[in-house]
């Protein structure tokens, strides 16, 4: 029982809805909509203990490395994978970084939109998820819809409010042979939109 996860769960009263798959400790890539820096905290806290200890969330390096408190939270408490968003080069390519996380056996939480969206619309998916799906075609990709997290900590605020959130886990998808990048990204985005309606 992780006390921080329990506190987060109590604070947001978050409900986990496993609609398309079960909470088993199999290796998966959870891809979710992105509305707030609170997103991965809610998703992380709602996973059962057995799953949570082997799941790494992705977080933006430019936000979480600002200041010693955030750095400590990101690296020591939540143990996220900090990825570069602004100046992506060969050396700090996030896809390489995340492939290494998967190779370790850990599950992954990623946000393919790449940036927080203001409204309920899903933005275009960045291509990282496609490259990950191609390199590890044996891992299920689970569409995960986070509801209400944008109201807990909207962009620009720094005090979270207790709002009832919910996390819906949809039916997993995998990259089909001969599927192009555009087709896959579209299909993944539709899967997440479907998840939102469940």
């Amino acid at each position, binding site marked *: 029982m992780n006390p921080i996860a329990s506190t987060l769960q109590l604070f947001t009263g978050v409900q986990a809805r496993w609609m398309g798959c079960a909470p088993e400790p199999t290796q998966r890539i959870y891809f979710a909509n992105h509305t707030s820096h609170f997103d991965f905290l809610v998703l992380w806290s709602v996973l059962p203990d057995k799953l949570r200890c082997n799941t790494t969330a992705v977080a933006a390096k430019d936000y979480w490395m600002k200041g010693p408190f955030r750095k400590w939270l990101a690296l020591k408490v939540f143990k996220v994978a900090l990825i570069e968003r602004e100046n992506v080069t060969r050396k700090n390519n996030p896809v390489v970084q995340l492939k290494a996380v998967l190779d370790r056996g850990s599950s992954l939480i990623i946000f393919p939109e790449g940036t927080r969206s203001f409204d309920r619309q899903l933005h275009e998916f960045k291509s990282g998820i496609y490259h990950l799906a191609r390199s590890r075609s044996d891992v299920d990709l689970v569409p995960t819809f986070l509801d*209400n997290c944008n*109201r807990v900590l909207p962009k620009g*605020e720094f005090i979270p*409010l207790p709002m*009832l959130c919910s996390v819906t886990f949809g039916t997993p998808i995998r990259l089909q042979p001969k599927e192009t990048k555009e087709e896959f990204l579209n299909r993944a985005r539709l899967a997440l939109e479907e998840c939102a309606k469940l």
Partner: protein
Amino acid sequence: MLGTASLIGWILSKLLKDPKQQEVVANLNSRTNAWWVMVVTFFIAIGLGRKGSIILFCLVSFLALREFITLTPTTRGDHRVLFWVFFVLNPIQYLLLAINWVSLFLIFIPVYAYLWIPIRNAIAGDTNDFLARTAKIQWALMVCVYFVSYAPALLDLHAPGYEHQGAKLLCFFVFVVQISDVLQYVFGKLFGKHKIAPLVSPNKTVEGFLGGIGSAVALGASLYWMTPFNPWQAALMALAITLMGFAGGLVMSAIKRDRGVKDYGVLIPGHGGMMDRIDSLCFAAPIFYHLTRFFFVH
């Protein structure tokens, strides 16, 4: 009482085979179970004494606020005000009760908090839908915090010959409110034919209303010994409590329909959340408090 209810529920679930009847029994049973949880928590709080009860109701207000605000379409512009509501205004209201500053407790929310909310919202600068947003937050604060806080305030009412027995008064109040709810449901299921307000709350019937209120008033009158009232006064008080309780349930139903929700939250399984449990209590508490204070406390 709960033990009897549980026993009856268990027997019924074995006897009734019809699936529709089984559904009703299941509903009653899950209500009874959730009630056990609440009663145990309640007794723990009473055991902890006055401060414990105040803290318990502060928590109840927090949970109710959280559900209510989640259902209210607040915007980014409301974020700062809501911080004040959750973390400052709610605790202060209960703190005032704890330190027995009754005169401020009675006006803190309707005067000071009511003024602060639009002021803070105006400073925040978002004028979109300003009046509606301000009003919704003010309403949430009134229903979830102010009205609910009248329940533990009952603990401090001292009538001549009835000093320091507020705990019994609170028990009487909570019992009458909630038994009225349950009995209205039971009478409604058994005899319900004519709907009262079908567009607002399709489950409320005239038969349920009359049977439930009538029996709750009779039960309340029989409990006069717990209170500073004689039997017919206890009956009238119980009538006031149950009527306001019914009104509260009706109003909160109307709000739910407006928001398109059937249950406020999924906090307590089988109940639909904190708001659904306290919707009767929050309208009845202030009336009962003030009636008792006006007529019996000198």
